[in-house]
């Protein structure tokens, strides 16, 4: 061999140690660990990421799972039907609700004290029906529109209807009749409304405009100032207590709310309360998935541990010879520690990529529900923490095992 050849060969201690110590490394065991670890970690970070992505559904102002507002009525009993009027909330009832720690504010629904007849027409075809109005303070509305006002000198009634009606039309009625689906804007423009108000010996016809759809309020809402004005003009002027209340609460998941309502015989409108349980349900599911992922990760960790122990066992003689040669336990451990770190980093990177791919698959579905994805930072941090813990456990085990080889038996 010429001098040049010798100089070109890798005689670094690191290269030589790897050549020496890689023997007995079981590829199948490492692949087994990598796969198990990959599955475990991916499950965990995907669950974390999914939770992050879905969370806005519970926080977002306009979301269907919105639940910071609860609409309540009194339970309708036979007695109350006979006795009349007892379905209303008294001032003291309202004050009591307002005094509860979970309550932010209470809004009163007022309803019309006269008869309303509506003519609803779409492109010339009309329909006549009796109907009702309700109003409530503007701060409880989830629709804002510049036309949301009433001027007695230029009387035109703006109304907000429940989004449920549009949904019912779009997904129930239209497909069955072969009619096209309609957007909110198209409906607002196409529908002509005419209201005839009767009462107190007066009769007057008004034009109506549909200004929006509410997902919070399952009713037909008119501005509060119109309600006041019309009740004075067409109603019998007797002041009435509200029969429906809208309550803004701090934390809808609060058990005390449900308890308070049932104690006082109040009913929650629709299934808003059920929807409020959805987040709790989601949390439970995500927790279970995360626990499953963590268990798989822990098992994977033990596979690697076992593999490393076997490896160190098989290479005991070599490791001892290296120590006698003057290599420090740290230098000897480093070969295996580097291997573990490389594998764990690779698993982490692939796992994050897999998570992002799966996220790209479900994200469009969430976007269809008007939810933008959350940040991936937390999932990344979780991935780094889990892999760091696994690596740390492996490193400590390797160091301890190699330290045990320092003193040899005779």
């Amino acid at each position: 061999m010429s001098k040049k050849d010798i100089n070109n060969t890798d005689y670094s201690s690191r290269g030589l140690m790897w050549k020496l110590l890689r023997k007995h490394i079981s590829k199948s065991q490492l692949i087994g660990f990598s796969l198990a670890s990959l599955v475990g970690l991916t499950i965990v970070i995907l669950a974390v990421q999914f939770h992050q992505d879905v969370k806005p559904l519970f926080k977002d102002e306009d979301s269907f799972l919105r639940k910071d507002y609860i609409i309540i009525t009194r339970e309708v009993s036979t007695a109350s039907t006979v006795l009349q009027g007892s379905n209303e909330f008294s001032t003291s009832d309202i004050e009591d609700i307002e005094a509860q720690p979970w309550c932010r504010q209470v809004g009163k629904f007022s309803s019309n004290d006269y008869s309303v007849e509506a003519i609803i027409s779409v492109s010339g075809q009309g329909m006549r029906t009796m109907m009702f109005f309700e109003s409530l303070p503007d701060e409880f509305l989830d629709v804002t529109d510049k036309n949301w006002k009433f001027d007695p000198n230029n009387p035109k009634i703006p109304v907000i209807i429940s989004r449920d009606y549009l949904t019912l039309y779009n997904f129930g009625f239209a497909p069955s009749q072969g009619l096209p689906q309609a957007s909110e804007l198209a409906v607002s423009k196409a529908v002509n409304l005419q209201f005839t108000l009767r009462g107190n010996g007066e009769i007057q016809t008004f034009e109506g405009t549909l200004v929006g759809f509410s997902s919070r309020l399952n009713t037909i809402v008119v501005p509060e100032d119109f309600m006041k004005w019309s009740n004075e003009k067409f109603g019998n002027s007797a002041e009435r207590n509200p029969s429906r209340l809208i309550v803004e609460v701090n934390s809808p998941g609060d058990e005390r709310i449900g308890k308070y309502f049932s104690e006082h015989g109040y009913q929650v409108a629709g299934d808003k309360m059920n929807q409020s349980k959805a987040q709790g349900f989601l949390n439970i599911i995500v927790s279970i998935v995360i626990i499953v992922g963590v268990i798989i990760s822990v098992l994977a960790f033990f596979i690697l541990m076992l593999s490393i122990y076997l490896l160190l066992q098989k290479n005991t003689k070599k490791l001892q010879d290296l120590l006698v040669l003057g290599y420090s336990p740290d230098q000897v451990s480093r070969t295996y520690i580097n291997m573990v770190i490389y594998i764990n980093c690779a698993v982490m990177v692939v796992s994050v990529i897999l998570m992002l791919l799966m996220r790209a698959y479900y994200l469009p579905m969430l976007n269809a529900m008007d939810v933008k994805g959350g940040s991936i930072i937390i999932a990344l941090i979780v991935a780094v923490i889990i892999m760091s813990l696994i690596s740390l456990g492996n490193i400590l085990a390797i160091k301890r095992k190699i330290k045990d080889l320092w003193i040899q038996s005779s």
Partner: protein
Amino acid sequence: MRGNRYFCKLLSPQLFPLVEQFHRRINNHLSINKMNTITLHNTLPAVFAGREDTGSEIWLRDVTFERGKKYLISAESGTGKSSLCSYIYGYRIDYSGTFAFDGRDIKQLSVAEWCKVRTHHIAYLAQEMRLFPELTAMENIMLKNSITNFKTHEEIVAMMERLGIVEKVDSPVAKLSIGQQQRVAIIRTLCQPCDFIMLDEPVSHLDETNNRIVAEMVTSEAMRQGAGIISTSVGNNVKINVDKEFKL
């Protein structure tokens, strides 16, 4: 692509040794303290425990090996010759009594201090040689030299030439004869700075000629470094003129 290449280079094992070598060079300069004596006080392998008089000039005696002097420990098989070496080299502790480097009990040495002893103070050739059969002759030698940076490639090749094994540079040690392996192990032993060279049956598998060459190499290396030599033998002594001979 260019960036990628640099990244690969960064991860390549070649770069780390540069840093390591740098540290080692600094350490070498710092290790100016020499080890002057190895003393044995009333030492006895645990397996011999209970024996009153072993008839040995080493066991249960006070013995001092001094730097710069040459010693031969002649022994019969089974008298604890290899045990003695492993106690002095710190990888076995099944003995009673005290071994001390410059008066300091070696049981007090930290792991880091032992590594220093093994790379800077005592060069040791084990009887079983402790070569790595799957590595080539040169790789076995470089495994030591790369942590001490003591010999150049040229010096190592020159030593191999002298001992007639230069053509075995790239042969796996497993394919070498015992005699050839012994020569590789001897060269590896000399690839470090030292105050003592401890040889456990260094020439048991060598012919007269190679015995003489080994003796010359070891002696001149010891002279150059001012190191002491402690050699053991069960019969085939290395041809070194010793200052003192002990019967184990």
